[in-house]
């Protein structure tokens, strides 16, 4: 694998680290199985691409993309909390609705951004000779800042209340936590991160496409599961770190699998590989336990 291909895998891995952090908040911290991601990821991309194409600042475009994502998460949470619609179903409804909304926002199934300004553009030379290095570097900074901000948030009074809401809502209420509000704001935060990833993604890919969200949730979940399998911990700063490592590792494994000619895999096999990888990561802890039992382990 060439260094450029490696950096390309790293770049997408970093973007999906944001998705994975969002999935971590909904699935693990709030215990809210949320499939909105497949709609909020392209939503962030559509909003950002439309704003950038309209001549707006790319950072501003990212911010509005994230805001739009927050709104979609809020709708999913509201459908569940206020209208008592099953979590999974509520998120599927929003995801489907977003497909139409994303088409409306872009006015077309796709929107090219070739030659438009991006958040990476100021750091890239005129001949684009260093873009393969600059894009992952900028993304890495964004990820590190996001991780630290999340760690600080979940160590705060409100963050702790949010974690309690997911772990034991009845106890949280007994301690005076407005659990409904926590679910609403947590889901907004989760989907804001996922939409921000979408907004950055369109800027690395040179355009937005309405179908770019397919499988987002599976990739995010894969990263979370790989992370917690490799680095099991209850400390939140370790969990966020593991999630980011999981996302990077996932993309690297995919890149290796697709690049190894002797295996004979092609790009269209991506979803199959993902499913196999997630499946493997899910059974790995059980296999480990079984193995240690057979080896006469004391566990």
């Amino acid at each position: 694998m060439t260094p450029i291909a490696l950096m390309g895998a790293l770049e997408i891995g970093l973007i999906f680290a944001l998705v994975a952090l969002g999935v971590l908040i909904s699935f693990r911290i709030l215990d809210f199985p949320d499939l909105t991601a497949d709609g909020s990821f392209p939503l962030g991309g559509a909003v950002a691409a439309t704003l950038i194409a309209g001549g707006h600042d790319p950072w501003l475009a990212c911010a509005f993309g994230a805001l739009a994502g927050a709104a979609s998460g809020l709708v999913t949470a509201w459908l569940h909390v206020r209208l008592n619609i099953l979590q999974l179903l509520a998120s599927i409804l929003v995801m489907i609705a977003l497909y139409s909304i994303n088409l409306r926002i872009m006015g077309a199934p796709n929107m090219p951004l070739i030659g438009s300004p991006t958040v990476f553009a100021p750091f890239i030379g005129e001949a684009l000779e260093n873009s393969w290095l600059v894009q992952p570097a900028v993304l890495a900074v964004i990820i590190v800042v996001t991780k630290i901000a999340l760690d600080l948030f979940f160590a705060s009074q409100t963050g702790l209340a949010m974690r309690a809401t997911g772990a034991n809502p009845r106890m949280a209420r007994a301690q005076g936590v407005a659990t409904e509000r926590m679910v609403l704001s947590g889901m907004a935060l989760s989907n804001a991160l996922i939409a921000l990833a979408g907004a950055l993604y369109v800027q690395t890919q040179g355009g937005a496409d309405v179908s770019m969200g397919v499988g987002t949730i599976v990739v995010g979940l894969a990263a979370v599961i790989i992370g917690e399998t490799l680095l099991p911990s209850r400390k939140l700063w370790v969990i966020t770190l593991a999630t980011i490592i999981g996302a990077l590792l996932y993309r690297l494994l995919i890149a290796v699998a697709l690049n190894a000619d002797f295996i004979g895999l092609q790009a269209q096999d991506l979803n199959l590989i993902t499913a196999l990888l997630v499946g493997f990561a899910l059974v790995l802890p059980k296999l480990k336990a079984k193995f240690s039992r057979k080896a006469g382990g004391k566990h």
Partner: protein
Amino acid sequence: MLRADNLFKTFNPGTPIENPVLRGLSLTIESGQFVTVIGSNGAGKSTLLNAISGDLFVDRGSLHIDEQDVTRVPAWQRAGMVARVFQDPMAGTCEGLSIEENMALAWHRGRSRGFGRAIRVEQRELFRDKLAMLKLGLENRLADRIDLLSGGQRQAVSLLMASLQPSRILLLDEHTAALDPKTAAFVLELTDRIVQENKLTAMMVTHSMRQALDHGHRTVMLHQGRVVLDVSGDERKQMQVSDLLAMFEKTRGEQIDDDALLLG
């Protein structure tokens, strides 16, 4: 002070499994009073506690805490007034969070939560001092996950958590029922100590008539969603478990007679 007036609550109304649990229950508890509550299964003990905590709303009647009408106030808004220890040790603490994180959650009960650090140095000191009172060695395990503790240890921590902030009433829902006799005795002794030290108004539901008479200032018996016995002072001091048991049988016996009359 807690005042419950004529509370009614029916589960599954209008269905074949309709179940009227509270049927005009009235009860007033003065500030600083420790009341024990007994009654058979289905007498309405847990429903009464859930109604006071706000976990469920009554169909009719009113609830006042210190002259404030809380009948329609949701549980999380009442939390500043009502502290609670659950029967299930798992229910009162938050699995996956550490001991100090659980205590920090309780330390903020009834207070607004911002974006400041949940656990500051002085709080950690306070938690350590409080845990040291238990003499269980937990003061050295602040960062341990709470689900590593035994049921008794978790109930003891739950009690501490309930006393970290002032409350108008402390609700104890058979909080020793899931423990072995020795641990139960320890948790009960701790309960008495915490209630006395903080001069708490408390309500303890129990299945044990012995416990009901040995602890607190007043004993109330519920039957079919109403208060059927209310003893305190000298009358209660002279009371034996056998007396209580006789009264218990009597109320149930009367009920059977009533049914017999109806069927006849």
